[in-house]
Each structure stands twice: as structure tokens, then as C-alpha cells.
């Protein structure tokens, strides 16, 4: 298997296709990042569909599949769709989503009308025109590569030049305007580049799925970073990986369409990202919740041990597990005790457990914050003393040392809480 893949990659045709697909998807993903950040990703979808009539018109005018004419036609109708959507939204009470759907479907319908009409003329030159629907990545040759390469370089160069303007435009239009940026001009350049990316991108995946290579890599990149620059790198990398994989898959299994595979690979990257990305991923968020839950349960147990010692001021006294359980609402106290043992907060002596010095200090801090917070609620927020307990139960696990100090300072290091319990401070 690996030998045959190696053989594939040494085939110049495969190299063209792989390289071409990577250039197309990489540069589309670059503009897709800005489309996504400006919350305009579905306008990209509209542009993609609206390109079809332009492709057909280009063909009709040129009489052959002359790439330049076709690209020009595609560019014009693609750009037209953006302005039509804008015009409809600004000159009627029609909302943006309806305008997008309307322009997208009607222009695509017009494209189908032209395409069918061309196909029925029997002009031999037209064969292959319908490849624009689902992409023609598998047919990329050396000449195409030159066109794609040039366009990609152009897009990249302009993204570098306009990086700051595009970012500001996506983030805060009004501020950009206030700073004296020519918002309309920047918007024009950005729209032009998005249309350009779509026009060359459709050669890889076709008009119907074009939205995916614009949005999906960018959406995936969003989960991994918080800076626009990193996002641009990542999304074009994701785009290129999808392009490469799509090209290889369709070469390994020639019946497989390239475009849809590019989209599926990009989608898988996105799904994996939204699941496993650190910080923003779903798994890491639910993991954080579980860890939080565990910490809360552990701290509650320490607190129980502390309170048992409060009566006779014998905080480091040994207690039986039964005694602890009687005073703690927890489904699995044994497991918690074992965890705390491992962390060095409790010690074990057969069936008896006691706080270590570190455990004692931690428990003391929790109890202190609990009681301080109760006092804060009653003094600063006029909340009745019998309503402050539940809130303090959660806040006691949360406060940072800075907030803890601030709380002590604002309350003036009081000695008792609203229920006349002692507030324990750490002896210095």
C-alpha cells in the first residue's frame, strides 16, 4: 500500500492535482477567515452559487472554455450577488438571511438554465462545463497550476498588506471609520478578494460545496487560537491538508469525487477541533467541569473534618470514616478520602482519618471564605442571614487569593459571621 502511494506521489499528474488543490483550498481558507470573523460566511455560499451563471456567460461569449473569459464571468456575477444582497437589504424590509437565500437560489437557477441550454446546443467545446458544479480538481494540469499559483500569491500578498484593516473591519467597523480608515474601500477590497477566492476555489470543489472550503477550515482554526494571525496560518494549513487528502483519496480510488472528499476531510478536522481543542473544545470544557466538581467534593470533605474539630478545638484529631460520612453529603466519601490521602491533605490510621497540617490550612481557608462571604452578603447586599448559606457554599471554592484579601480588607477582618460562628484566620 505504502509503495503504491509513493508511486502516486512521484507521478507528475498527481503532483499537479495535489499542489493545485492545496493552493486553492489554502488561499480560500485565508479569505474564509475574514468572512467568518465578519459573520458573513453564508454570503460566501451565495457568491459560490452565483458564480454559475457567470461561468456560462463567459463560455457563451468566448465560444470555448477559455479560462480567462470564464473566470471573468464568474467574478462578475459573484461580485454582483454581494451587491444585490446588500441592495435588497438596504432598500426594503427584507432581512439578510432571506436576501441571501433568494439571491443564491435564483442566480443558481439562472445558471442551470444557461448550462442546460448550452448543453443542448450540442457544441462539443462545452463538455466538461458541468464540472464547475462539483469541481474538477482531478483534471488540474500544469497550466492551471500557474493560474492558481498566481492568484494565490496575489491573495496572500493582499492579505498581508490589508491584514490590519481587515481585522479591524471585522472586529469593529465603527471604530475603523472613526479612526479615519476608508471603510468602504477596505470592504470593497475584502469582498473582491473573497469573490476571487471563491472563483478559483470552485475549480477544486465546485459551486455547491464551495462554502465549506471557505468556512470550515476557518471555523476549525477558531477553536485552537485567539489571534487573527494564528487563525490565518492554521486555517490555511487545515485547508491545504484537506486539499491534499482529497486529491490523494480520489487518486487512490478513481471513482471518488475529489471535491466532496476535500469537504469531508475539512469537516472532520473541524469536528475533531471542536471536540478536542484545548480550552475551547467540548471535551476539555467538560473535563474542566468534572475537575471542578471533584475539587468541590474534596474541599467539602476537608471542611467537614475541620468542623468536627471546631467543637473541642481538636482539628487534627482522628475520626472514623463513619463519623465523617454522617456529616457529609457525598455519594463516594471513601474515594474522596483516598484522593485526599494521595494529595497529602489527610492521613490514615486503619479506619481512622485525620487532617494533615496542609489539609488543616486548606480547610481553614475554605471555612474562612465561607463565613466572610456570608458576612459580605448580609452587610453589603442586605440579604437576610438565613439566605446566605447556599451562596457561600459555592463561593468558598472559587475565590482567588487576591479576592480573598480584598474581601477581608473590605470587611475589616471581622471575628464572627452573621451566625456568630468564629471566622478562622491563619496565624502568622
Amino acid at each position, binding site marked *: 500500500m505504502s509503495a503504491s502511494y509513493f508511486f502516486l506521489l512521484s507521478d507528475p499528474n498527481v503532483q499537479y492535482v495535489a499542489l493545485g488543490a492545496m493552493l486553492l483550498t489554502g488561499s480560500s481558507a485565508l479569505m474564509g477567515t475574514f468572512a467568518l470573523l465578519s459573520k458573513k460566511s453564508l454570503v460566501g455560499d451565495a457568491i459560490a452559487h452565483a458564480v454559475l451563471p457567470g461561468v456560462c456567460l463567459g463560455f457563451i461569449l468566448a465560444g470555448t472554455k477559455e479560462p480567462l473569459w470564464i473566470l471573468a464571468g464568474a467574478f462578475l456575477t459573484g461580485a454582483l450577488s454581494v451587491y444585490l444582497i446588500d441592495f435588497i437589504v438596504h432598500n426594503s424590509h427584507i432581512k439578510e438571511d432571506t436576501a441571501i437565500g433568494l439571491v443564491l437560489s435564483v442566480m443558481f437557477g439562472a445558471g*442551470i438554465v444557461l448550462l442546460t441550454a448550452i448543453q443542448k446546443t450540442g457544441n462539443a467545446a462545452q463538455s466538461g462545463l458541468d464540472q464547475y458544479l462539483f469541481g474538477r480538481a482531478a483534471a488540474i494540469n500544469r497550466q492551471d497550476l500557474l493560474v492558481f499559483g498566481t492568484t494565490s500569491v496575489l491573495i496572500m500578498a493582499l492579505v498581508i498588506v490589508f491584514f490590519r484593516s481587515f481585522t479591524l473591519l471585522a472586529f469593529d467597523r465603527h471604530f475603523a471609520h472613526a479612526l479615519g480608515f476608508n471603510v468602504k474601500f477596505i470592504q470593497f477590497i475584502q469582498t473582491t478578494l473573497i469573490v476571487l477566492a471563491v472563483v478559483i476555489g470552485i475549480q477544486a470543489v465546485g459551486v455547491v460545496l464551495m462554502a465549506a472550503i471557505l468556512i470550515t477550515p476557518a471555523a476549525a482554526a477558531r477553536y485552537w487560537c485567539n489571534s487573527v494571525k494564528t487563525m490565518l496560518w492554521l486555517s490555511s494549513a487545515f485547508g491545504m491538508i484537506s486539499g491534499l487528502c482529497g486529491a490523494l483519496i480520489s487518486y487512490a480510488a478513481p471513482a471518488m469525487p475529489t471535491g466532496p472528499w476535500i469537504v469531508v476531510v475539512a469537516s472532520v478536522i473541524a469536528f475533531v477541533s471542536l471536540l478536542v481543542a484545548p480550552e475551547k473544545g467540548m471535551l476539555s470544557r467538560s473535563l474542566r467541569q468534572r475537575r471542578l466538581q471533584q475539587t468541590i467534593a474534596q474541599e467539602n470533605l476537608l471542611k467537614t473534618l475541620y468542623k468536627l474539630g471546631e467543637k473541642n478545638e481538636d482539628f487534627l484529631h482522628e475520626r472514623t470514616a463513619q463519623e465523617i460520612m454522617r456529616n457529609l453529603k457525598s455519594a463516594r466519601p471513601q474515594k474522596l478520602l483516598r484522593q485526599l490521602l494521595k494529595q497529602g491533605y489527610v492521613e490514615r490510621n486503619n479506619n481512622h482519618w485525620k487532617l494533615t497540617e496542609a489539609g488543616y490550612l486548606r480547610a481553614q481557608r475554605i471555612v474562612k471564605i465561607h463565613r466572610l462571604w456570608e458576612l459580605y452578603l448580609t452587610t453589603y447586599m442586605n440579604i437576610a442571614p438565613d439566605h446566605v448559606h447556599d451562596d457561600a457554599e459555592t463561593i468558598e471554592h472559587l475565590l482567588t487569593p487576591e479576592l480573598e484579601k480584598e474581601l477581608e480588607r473590605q470587611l475589616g477582618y471581622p471575628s464572627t459571621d452573621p451566625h456568630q460562628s468564629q471566622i478562622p484566620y491563619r496565624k502568622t
Partner: protein
Amino acid sequence: MPIGYEDITILITGTLIAICCALTGSLLMLRRMALAGDAIAHAVLPGIVIAFLLSGSRSSPFMIAGAAAIGLFTTFSIEMLQKKARLQNDASIGLTFTFLFATGIILLSMLAGQVDLDQDCVLYGELAYVPLDVWITPSGTVMGPRALWVTAVLCLLLLALIIVARRPLLLTTFDPAYASAIGVSVPFYHYLLMGSVSVTTVVSFELVGAILVVALLIAPAATAYMLTDNFRMLLVLACLAGAVAVAAGYAMAATLDTSIAGSIATANGLLFMLAFIFSPQHGLLFRKKRKPVIH
């Protein structure tokens, strides 16, 4: 060109589809969910291919149910992506439907030869073949074109739904907060509508194709929205606009010898353009003169 039996069958079926789409599409538009409709229209493809493979026929209730399920799944996963994965709305829609549509196309090419369904059908639909696919009962009675029956039943069901549930549908669309304040289940009507959109899309899919369903859903609603300020009238006008577009599109396709579905979409666009420019209330020509009345 004389109008024959086949033309009439196609026109009636097309009109019925247009009415189904106009009814559900109007509600989608008013809920600002036009693009969710677009997404469902694309996303039902894998459902159709799989159901097709399993049941081996078109228009079977099995297929409609399967594809409707995937339509609801689409709605659900768009919402999950937003809520659980915190992806922005437009990207959630785009990611979901392109993935499902691409999967559908891949399934199609894997099963090429096993299913009687191809990419052309996906894009253009086969309205022209409606008269050819005849429903014959087991006892041998010829009942006429099957698609005609299916769309007629769907149309009646949707009309009944909209008449019976017009109040909750209107209220949950217009002011969901008030609706839930007086005890109406907003999610229930949301999923009811999305389910209807899915079924409508599936039934229309093989007749007009995936993308032109979107034109039938949204364009007539937008045209009607330009012409009236009344909810009931909006629904009526949208159905009317859809029907007119079907007739005009069919005539256009016959004259130019081109795709029927594409022509219907184009006719829908032209109708909208007329309404957009010449509507007495909201049209481009008269818009500037009208100012809100201030007392």
C-alpha cells in the same frame, strides 16, 4: 405549442410543490430562518440516498420518513454546534450542510449503478418525468402519476396544519417571549415547522432538485412580503407567486428548451424583482415617498 396531458400533469404537480414550499417558506422567512431551510434542503441528500438504497424506490413513506429525520437532525445539530460547541450561527449552518451534502455526493458515487439517482437529478430534479412514473395499485388500477398524489397529500396536510395551528404558529413566530409566557411551547412549534420543511424538501427534492427547492421556499415568500402587511394575505400571495412562477418557468423552459427547475427559479427571481420595484407599499419606486405617521 399545444398543451397536452403531460404538460397539465407537470403544471399541477409543480404548482402543488410550489404551494407546499411557499407555506413553509413564508414561516421560515418571518422567523429569520431562511438559511436553515437552505441547509435542510442540502442536507437531506444523504438521507435520500440511504433510504433509496434500503427501500429501493422513490416516494416511499419510508424514504420520506428517513429524510425527514435527517432534516430534523440537521436542525438539531446546527443548534448543538451553537450551544454546546459555541460555534457562531452562520458557521454552524455552513459546516453542517456542506458536510452532509458532500457525504451524500460521495455515497452517490459509491453506489453508482445500485441506485437510480444521479448528480443531475440532485441538481435539476426531474419534473419532466412526472407523467411517466405512474402509480398502479396492487389490483391493477392505474391511478395516474405518483408524484402528483404524493404532493397533493402533502399539500393538503400542510394546509390543514397551517389552518389548525395558525395561531400558535403566528404567535411563536411574532413574539416567542409572549407565547411562552402564556404557556405555548415554543420549541414544539419550532420542530413542527422544521419537520414540515424537511418533508416538503424531500418531496420536492426529486422533482426540482436540492438547490431550487430553496428558490421555491424563499422567493415566493419574499415576493409576497413586498406586497402585503397582512399575515394571511402573505401566505395566500406567496402560494400565488409560487404558482405563477411555476407556470411562467415551465413556458420559459419549453421555449428555450432548457431546465424546467432552473427556469422556475429564474421566474421566481423575476417575479420578486417586479414586486421589489413596483410594489405600491414597499416598492423601490414608491418607498421614499412613504414616511411613518407620527402623532
